[in-house]
């Protein structure tokens, strides 16, 4: 009867929700205790936000760490490390499950992008004029169940061969084509990469065809982590299927790994519910030896990653302590709530995301085939207003050039070739630039040519896009460019097709794969990356008539600037010389090519629960350093 009364009361009370809702004030208890929130700051105009950490007392072992994952896992290869390209999946691999030869300290800021030995004893220096890399494996590193044996160099070679074989679904094998014999496997002419040798169980040697100064960084990617062949053979030629049976070499494993046998066909481990599923559960790997691992702390007993279709619910659960963390995007109202409440504020941690948001101008399409128009756009765009459209300085700092400074080890932090007062645009400078353009024959400071009327602009349909578009339209109009905006739900397929000849794209955003500017410049500006569909060089930097014919692009192909020689030159350099070289490419792009209007270096904002006692950002994975978190 009591139950009935409660339900009846519930039913009638729901009817009266509207009236009640208006009067509901917050009575949430604030978290107590002494807390510290630290930031290793990076630059950028319009408000500085760094990569952070949170600490409230000394971390203790134990507990469950539940992470609400918005909408769906969104895996690109069903969690199979050979092909998985989702950054959030890399966070799980790198912190919890896999040990590639090279790893990171799982720290925020530039320090978190420094490489260290993980499975290998160190990140080695190359020999043989940069053509040979020799890695020595740590002793005592073991695969977890169901394999339960020591990891050897042959397991790394096996993973590399799997990555080279296109039938196994590798999605970033292009980073390894510098290894001798790689292409032979990729083309089906060989089964093993000849440039990889394993003289003994604890040594692996890579022979390259040309120097690659960032080779150690490439060997930090999850696809290069060891895979035991006795399990891997069950999944050869079946891209993605290994994702449900990933064998751990790190501190945690998929729940149920100890309940399956390493014989083909393998049953799926219960901790993995599939790409369309709703959970991943990781538990401690009994074969893991903490003494082999100086960089992972591993306080938590169990990690639960659960899909939740309701972003508001995710943050409500984080606030209540039902979840500890989230893989979601806090809405402006949530950010506002945390930013304005002193007890909540320490639990909202913005972190530099190694990513750039930008407007891309197609170098072959009028009026952007004229560098003066592109420069005028850089002068006129009100980046401050665009930052506000994103929610202010917490969601991101204003970008002043191509690559976020943290990837230059905080170099170019002050570089701003189009600096304007308050980053709000400068009409006089924009008009001065426009006067030099062929599209302003009368030197009026405005584009008067017909090419500037109805300039097709592709935008997306997210809330932030609808806030950005009016700002861009108004800014462009100040220099005589009338934009015709087409908003498309999911704009990328359109702007990634060169044959569509899109002059201006509002949507683009790019993040690093690993901590080297190569992963920006080579993929966004090298002419060799211009392809028919899925193209990421939206501006078509370096396009030639031959490439244009191949991809179906038409437009002004005369003297399109290129940075291919600079990219090739920098990619073989090492250390500071390399960084300095990339900085020069950034400068050249911003001043002599001008394919973009970079406007935001977005932050990754994380909100953590009241019972989290330690949290820090992992700069490599651009997410929580799960290996360092703790709860009370």
């Amino acid at each position, binding site marked *: 009867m009591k139950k009935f009364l409660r339900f009846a009361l519930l039913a009638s009370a*729901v009817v009266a929700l509207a009236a009640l809702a208006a009067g509901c004030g917050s009575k949430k208890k604030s978290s107590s205790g002494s807390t510290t929130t630290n930031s290793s700051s990076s630059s950028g105009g319009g408000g500085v936000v760094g990569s952070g950490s949170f600490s409230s007392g000394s971390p203790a072992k134990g507990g469950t760490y539940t992470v609400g994952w918005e909408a769906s896992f969104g895996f690109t290869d069903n969690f199979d490390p050979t092909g998985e390209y989702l950054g959030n999946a890399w966070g799980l691999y790198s912190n919890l499950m896999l040990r590639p030869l090279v790893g990171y300290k799982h720290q925020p800021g530039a320090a978190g992008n420094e490489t260290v030995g993980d499975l290998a004893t160190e990140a080695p220096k190359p020999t043989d004029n940069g053509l040979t890399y020799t890695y020595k494996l740590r002793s005592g590193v073991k695969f977890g169940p169901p394999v339960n044996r020591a990891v050897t160099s042959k397991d790394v070679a096996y993973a590399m061969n799997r990555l080279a074989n296109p039938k196994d679904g*590798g999605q970033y094998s292009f980073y390894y084509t510098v290894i001798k014999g790689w292409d032979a496997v990729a083309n089906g002419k060989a089964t093993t990469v000849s440039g990889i040798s394993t003289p003994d169980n604890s040594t692996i040697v890579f022979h390259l065809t040309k120097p690659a100064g960032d080779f150690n960084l490439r060997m930090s990617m999850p696809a290069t982590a060891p895979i035991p062949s006795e399990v891997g053979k069950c999944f050869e030629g079946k*891209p993605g299927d290994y*994702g449900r049976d990933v064998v751990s070499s790190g501190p945690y494993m998929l729940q149920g790994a100890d309940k399956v046998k390493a014989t083909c066909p393998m049953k799926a481990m219960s901790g993995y519910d599939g*790409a*369309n599923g709703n959970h991943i559960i990781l538990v401690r790997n009994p074969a893991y030896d903490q003494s082999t691992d100086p960089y992972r702390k591993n306080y938590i007993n169990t990690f639960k990653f659960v899909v939740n*279709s309701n972003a508001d619910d995710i943050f409500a659960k984080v606030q209540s302590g039902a979840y500890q963390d989230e893989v979601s995007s806090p809405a402006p109202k949530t950010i506002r709530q945390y930013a304005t409440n002193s007890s909540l504020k320490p639990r909202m941690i913005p972190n530099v995301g190694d990513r750039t948001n930008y407007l891309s101008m197609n170098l072959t399409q009028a009026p952007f085939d004229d560098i003066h128009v592109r420069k005028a756009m850089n002068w006129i765009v009100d980046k401050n207003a665009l930052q506000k459209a994103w929610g202010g300085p917490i969601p991101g700092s204003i970008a002043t050039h191509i690559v976020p400074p943290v990837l230059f080890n905080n170099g170019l932090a002050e570089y701003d070739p189009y600096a304007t007062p308050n980053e709000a645009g400068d009409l006089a400078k924009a008009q001065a630039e426009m006067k030099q353009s062929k599209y302003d024959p009368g030197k009026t400071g405005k584009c008067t040519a017909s090419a500037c009327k109805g300039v097709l602009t592709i935008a997306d349909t997210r809330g932030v896009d609808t806030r950005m578009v009016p700002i861009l339209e108004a800014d462009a109009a100040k220099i005589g460019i009338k934009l015709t905006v087409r908003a498309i739900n999911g704009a990328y397929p359109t702007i990634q097709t060169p044959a569509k000849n899109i002059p201006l794209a509002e949507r683009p955003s790019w993040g690093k794969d690993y901590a080297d500017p190569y992963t920006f410049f080579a993929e966004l500006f090298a002419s060799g990356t211009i*392809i028919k569909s899925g193209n990421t060089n939206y501006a078509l930097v370096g396009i030639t008539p031959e490439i244009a014919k191949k991809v179906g692009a038409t437009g002004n192909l005369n003297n399109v600037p290129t940075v291919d020689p600079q990219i090739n030159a920098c990619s073989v350099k090492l250390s500071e010389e390399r960084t300095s070289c990339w900085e020069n490419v950034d400068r050249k792009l911003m001043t002599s090519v001008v394919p973009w209007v970079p406007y935001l270096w977005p932050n990754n904002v994380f909100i953590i629960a009241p019972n989290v006692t330690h949290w820090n950002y992992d700069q490599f994975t651009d997410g929580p350093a799960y290996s360092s978190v703790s709860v009370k």
Partner: protein
Amino acid sequence: MAFYIARRLVWTLVVVACVVAITFAVFYLLPAGDPALRFAGKNPTDAELAQIHHRLGLDQPFYEQFGRFTWHFFTGDRYGWPGLGYTYASGSSVKSLIIARAPRTLLLIMGAAIIWLVLGVGIGVLSAVRRRSATDRLSMGFALFGISTPVFWLGLMALYIFWRRLGWTGGSGYVSPTDSLTGFFSHMITPWIVLALLYAAFYARMTRNNLLETLGEDYIRTARAKGLPERTVIFKHGLRASLTPIVTMFGLDIALLVGGAVITESVFNLQGLGYLAINDALQQDLPVVLGVVLVASVAVAIANLVVDILYAFIDPRVRYA
């Protein structure tokens, strides 16, 4: 009657085939992009894309893909019968995915349907027999509130008040009744009520109007003149006659919700069939969308059939040859 049912079943198959063909055509002829790009990484080569197309069967013409899908549906595939194929994203069986998600949706619909039927018809009858009274006005006020309040708002507010503030309910998420019966009820009661409110409002208005119309008929006057008790007049003669359109609506509403309770499923993180379809449509995972569309269209067609058959029992004037 048997001939009628057989004929309707044949037409049901035709309708389902048409719906699936249209869905297939929409994804094939009006794609938002190449699904293979999702699995190709950055800057894929033509050869890599061709390999993924081949793996996903996207390198075949539309009619072949559709033919293969239809063939597998009737004859079964490696996951058994009916063959609904495998998801692009995980390579797992669409059928098992639907089987895993369907109970969530069906239990949501069942619970909500009971509430809205009892609440809607009850309020409608009350409102009709006490026409123009305060009860009538209050009832219709409730109906107006239910119809005009968006489910997502009501859902969020209900979660906020009954879960977060009062702690009466279990909050969002799905708890299987086999795991915990109390957990199941505690998590489902709010989505049931929220989903039911919208429909209860419709049903209340419809029941009131139908009943008022029926109560004005000559045979009702005759029944009263014969001295039948008012309760018998209303429930036996009035309500029964006015139920026909309600039954039609009820059948179709339940069927439509099989794939259409997406907002409630999203707000309450139930992750049923509707949410599965929307999420996979956004990710261009055609086999999953087709599977859900197939299930939903079969549900609508069968519900139509059941409603038509029920007519004969509810309304003696209806007879099928």
